[in-house]
């Protein structure tokens, strides 16, 4: 029977407290021979790894070569331009004051049934036109600088 088994508890405890773990082998060279061989084998296998599939085509389009503009922005800009142009044209074409009597805008030529375009009503935010059975209501366009984000 070994002497260690006969040690009194206090001495055993003292030995226990002096136990130190082996230093962690960070450097492979400090590892045992078998471990080093295994790791070197894996390093060799690792260095030979290569992807089977080539670089995917179409992925090398350089970033920034074509400026990307969101479609919503383009649509919003086009809508704003159209509305502005329409508002300007409408203001230029508007010739009657509020409350004035409907005026003939055009006169049918002689011999033809009368098909004039009449201004039915003029208000600050809309103008109503009529030509025969057709009525056209032109509304004042909304502000081009709406706070709402473009949809879609």
């Amino acid at each position: 029977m070994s002497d260690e088994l006969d040690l009194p508890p206090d001495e055993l405890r003292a030995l226990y407290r002096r136990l130190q773990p082996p230093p962690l082998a960070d450097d492979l060279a400090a590892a045992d021979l078998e471990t080093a061989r295994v790791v070197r084998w894996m390093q060799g296998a690792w260095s030979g790894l290569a992807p089977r599939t080539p670089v995917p085509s179409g992925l090398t389009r350089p970033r920034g070569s074509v400026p990307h503009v969101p479609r919503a922005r383009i649509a919003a800009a086009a809508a704003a331009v159209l509305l502005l142009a329409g508002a300007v044209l409408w203001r230029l074409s508007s010739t009657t004051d509020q409350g004035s009597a409907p005026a003939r805008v055009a006169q049918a030529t002689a011999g033809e049934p009368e098909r004039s375009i009449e201004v039915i009503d003029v208000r600050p935010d809309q103008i109503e036109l009529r030509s025969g059975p057709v009525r056209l209501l032109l509304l004042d366009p909304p502000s081009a600088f709406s706070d709402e984000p473009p949809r879609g």
Partner: protein
Amino acid sequence: MRRDLGGHLPPESLTSVDERIPSAPAAGRAYPEQAMSTPPSEAGGPTRELLRAVLAGAPEAVDAWFRAEHPEVYRLCFGFLAHAADAEDVAQESMLHLLERLADWDSARSYRAWRTTLVLNRCRDRLRRAESRRSAEEGAARARPEAPLPDPGDAAQRAEIEAALALGLRVLPPREREAFVLRDLQELDTGEVARVLAITESSVRSLVTLARRRLREVLGKHLTLEGGAHE
């Protein structure tokens, strides 16, 4: 260090841990001044000139960057996933992701560590999603190679070598696998591994030691003294 619920490491974490002159030296070690100009972790990686050209959108630079980085990223994915087909998929996803996020990389910091962190996060995502394969991997983790390991330099046995390498990596639990891949296969220094994994250097050493021990138990008997296959 901040982590999201998915266990991801934000690349921005490199802001605080990748400084070459930290206010509190990690593990009692201060980086020498000269390390600022030539950080060893950048050895073999794309040059800063190439990366700038990629960011500028030069087609030749993007192509060159892809061809240089794809094999590196694939090896990382293979190491973390221990599965060749998954590694192919995630490597291609990662290349796209890296190209999209390259503008976010701060050139004052280690490109390799930033790249590795992004790839690691994607691999962790894939592992989490592959729940159905987990039980198969657990079975594979208990498997042991039956044939002697082929010589890693024998190109004719490429498939067998990859299979043996994957088997060895699957033996390792995820955390040990990550530390082992980065430290012993990717050959990053302990400090950089600690930064990528957001753990202490002592933890890195512990994980690597555990990983090496497991691999020795599984693969050691199948290697000759020269490190190749048994005769």
